[in-house]
C-alpha cells in the first residue's frame, strides 16, 4: 500500500492540529471575565489572586502565554486543572479509555445495524418492506442522540427497569483495573462477571449514540448500494449465478462502501462529539462528561486539553476512514 499517501495524510493533519491548538487558545482567552477570580471563590484577597495568576502564567502577555503554552505542549505538558488540581494530561489519559470503549462499541453497533438495514433495504428494493426500512431510517435520523438517551432511560430504565442507567459498571463488583479499558481488560483477564456488567451498562449510552449514526449511514449506504445495483457488473454477476442477496454483499457492497464511507465518515466524528451529552446523561465517566464539568467550572487548562483531545481523536478517525477507503478501492491505491 502506498506509504507516501499515508505520510501525506499524516503531514496534512499537522497544520490542522496546529490550527486547532491556536483556535482553542485564542477562543478561551477572549472569555470575558477572570478565570482566576472564579477559581479562588469567595474569600480570596487581591494578593491570593495575583499569586494564582502568576502560578498559571496568566500575568504574561497573550503572545507570551501562547509561546509558553506551545512549549509546554511540545513536552507533553497540558498544564494543571484548576478545579481538579491535577495534571490535565493524566486526567485525560485516565478517562480516555472509558470514552474510547464506549465510542468503539457504539460505532460497531451503528455500523452493524446500518449494514443490516441497508442490505435488507436493498434486498427488498422496490417492494413494500423497503418503504418500512426507509421510513424507520427517516424517523431515527430526525432524533438527536441525547433525546434517544432520555427516551431510553424512561423506557428501559424506569418504566421497564431492565437496564442500568448510570455509571460504567455495577459498583458492588470489585475490579482493580490497570488500564481502565474495563471491557477489553476484563475479557483478557477472564473476569467475565465484570465484562457482563460493563457491557450491560454500556448498552443504553452506546445505543443512544449509535442510532443517529446508524440511520445516516444506513441511508447513505443504501442509496450508494442502489446506485451500485444498477451498474453493469452487478447485472452481469446475476447472469453468472450470483443469488439476489449474494450479489449484494459479495459484489455491490464493497463498491458502495467507498462513496458511503466517504460521505458518512464525518458522522463518525459527530458520534464522538455526542459523547459530551450522552456521557453526561448516563453518568459515564469519560472525557465527554468531564468536558461539561470543565466548562461549568471554567477550568481553562482542562477545557483546552479536552478540546485538543477531541481534535486529535477526530483527526485520527478521519485518517482511519481515509485509510479504510484506500483499502477498499484499489483505484485510489494506484494513482
Amino acid at each position, binding site marked *: 500500500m502506498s506509504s507516501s499517501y499515508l505520510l501525506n495524510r499524516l503531514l496534512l493533519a499537522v497544520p490542522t492540529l496546529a*490550527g486547532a491548538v491556536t483556535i482553542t487558545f485564542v477562543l478561551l482567552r477572549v472569555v470575558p471575565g477572570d478565570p482566576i477570580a472564579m477559581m479562588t471563590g469567595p474569600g480570596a484577597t487581591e494578593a491570593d489572586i495575583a499569586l494564582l495568576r502568576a502560578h498559571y502564567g496568566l500575568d504574561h502577555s497573550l503572545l507570551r502565554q501562547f509561546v509558553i503554552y506551545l512549549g509546554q505542549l511540545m513536552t507533553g505538558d497540558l498544564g494543571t486543572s484548576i478545579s481538579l488540581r491535577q495534571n490535565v494530561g493524566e486526567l485525560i489519559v485516565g478517562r480516555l479509555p472509558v470514552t474510547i470503549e464506549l465510542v468503539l462499541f457504539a460505532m460497531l453497533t451503528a455500523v452493524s445495524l446500518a449494514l443490516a438495514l441497508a442490505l435488507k433495504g436493498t434486498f427488498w428494493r422496490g417492494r413494500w418492506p423497503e418503504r418500512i426500512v426507509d421510513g424507520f431510517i*427517516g424517523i431515527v435520523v430526525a432524533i438527536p442522540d441525547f*433525546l434517544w438517551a432520555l427516551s431510553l432511560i424512561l423506557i428501559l430504565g424506569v418504566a421497564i427497569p431492565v437496564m442500568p442507567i448510570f455509571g460504567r459498571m455495577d459498583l458492588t463488583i470489585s475490579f482493580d483495573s490497570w488500564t481502565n479499558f474495563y471491557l477489553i481488560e476484563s475479557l483478557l483477564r477472564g473476569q467475565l462477571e465484570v465484562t457482563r456488567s460493563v457491557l450491560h451498562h454500556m448498552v443504553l449510552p452506546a445505543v443512544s449514540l449509535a442510532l443517529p449514526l446508524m440511520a445516516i449511514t444506513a441511508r447513505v449506504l443504501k442509496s450508494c448500494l442502489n*446506485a451500485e445495483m444498477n451498474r453493469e457488473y452487478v447485472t452481469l454477476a446475476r447472469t453468472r449465478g450470483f443469488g439476489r442477496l449474494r450479489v449484494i454483499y459479495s459484489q455491490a457492497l464493497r463498491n458502495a462502501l467507498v462513496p458511503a464511507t466517504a460521505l458518512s465518515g464525518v458522522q463518525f*466524528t459527530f458520534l464522538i462529539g455526542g459523547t459530551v451529552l450522552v456521557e453526561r446523561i448516563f453518568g459515564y465517566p469519560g472525557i465527554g462528561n468531564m468536558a461539561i464539568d470543565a*466548562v461549568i467550572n471554567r477550568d481553562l487548562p482542562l477545557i483546552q486539553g479536552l478540546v485538543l483531545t477531541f481534535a486529535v481523536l477526530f483527526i485520527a478517525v478521519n485518517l482511519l476512514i481515509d485509510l479504510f477507503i484506500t483499502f477498499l478501492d484499489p483505484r485510489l491505491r494506484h494513482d
Partner: protein
Amino acid sequence: MIEGRADLPITYRILHEPRAVFGLGILGLMIAVALMAPWLAPHDPLEQDLLASFLPPSWQESGDPAFLLGTDTLGRDVASRLIYGTRTALIVALVAATLAALLGTTLGMLAGFYGGKTDMLISRAVDIWMSFPAVLLSIVLVAVIGAGLHAVIIAIVIIDWTRFCRVIRAETMVQKERDYVASGITIGLTRFRILIQEVLPNLMPLLIVLLTLEMGIAIVVETILSFVGLSVASDTPTWGNLIQEGRQYIHQVPWLLGLPVACVVLSVLSLNALGDGIKEVIDPETRQ
C-alpha cells in the same frame, strides 16, 4: 419514460413529491403558528398562576378547559408556551441557517471557483473546524458569549458554516467545468460576474436543500444548549427550555416533556423530509 417529467417546472415536481409536500406542510404550519402566536395562544406564555400549577390537559378528569394542554410548575399555559416556542425555534432555525449558509456558501464558492491558494486556505480552515466536536464547541462558545438567543445563533453559525462550505465548494468545482462558464469567459464576462450570475443560480437548488437540513440542525442545537442550561435565558419559552423543565417532572407530568420533544422531532422530521424531497427532484443521480 421518466425524462418526460423532467421537463415539468421544478415547483410542480416538488409539489408532487410526497415527502416535500409533507415537509412544506409542516413548515408552513410552523410559520403560520409563529406569525399568529399572539392570536393563537390562549394565554400570555409568561403569565403565572402558582395556585394552578401542573394542571393536566383539558380532556383529562381534573383538567381545566382554559388550559388546553395543561400548565407547568409555575402554572403557565403549556399550549401557549409551545406556540411561542415555535416562534423562537423558527427564528433560530431561519436566522442561524441563513447566516451559516451565507458565510459557508461565500467561502465555498470562492474556494471552489478560484482554487489555488484561496482554496487551500479555506479548505484548511474547514478541516480545522471539523476537528472540533460541535456540541462541546457550541457549549464553550455560549459559555463564552453568554446565554441568549443571539449567542445560540452565533454559535450555530460559527460551527455550521463548514457544512455549507464543503458541499458548495465541491459543487462549484463541478459547475466550473461546465460549458457555460467557459463560454462566459469567451464572451468577456469577468470571473466574478460569472460566479455571481451564472454559477450561483446553478447552486441554488443544492443550497436550498442544505438550508432546510440546517434549519433542522439549528432547532436541535437550540434544544441541546437549553438542555445543558445554556440557551436562551430569561423566561423566553423555547422548546429546549420546555424539555429541560419537563424532564424534572417526567413521572408526574410526562406530557411536559413529551409535547416539546414531539415538536422538535416533528419539525426536524419535516425539514429533513423537505430537504430529501427537493433533493430527489433536483438531483438526476437519484432520480431513477
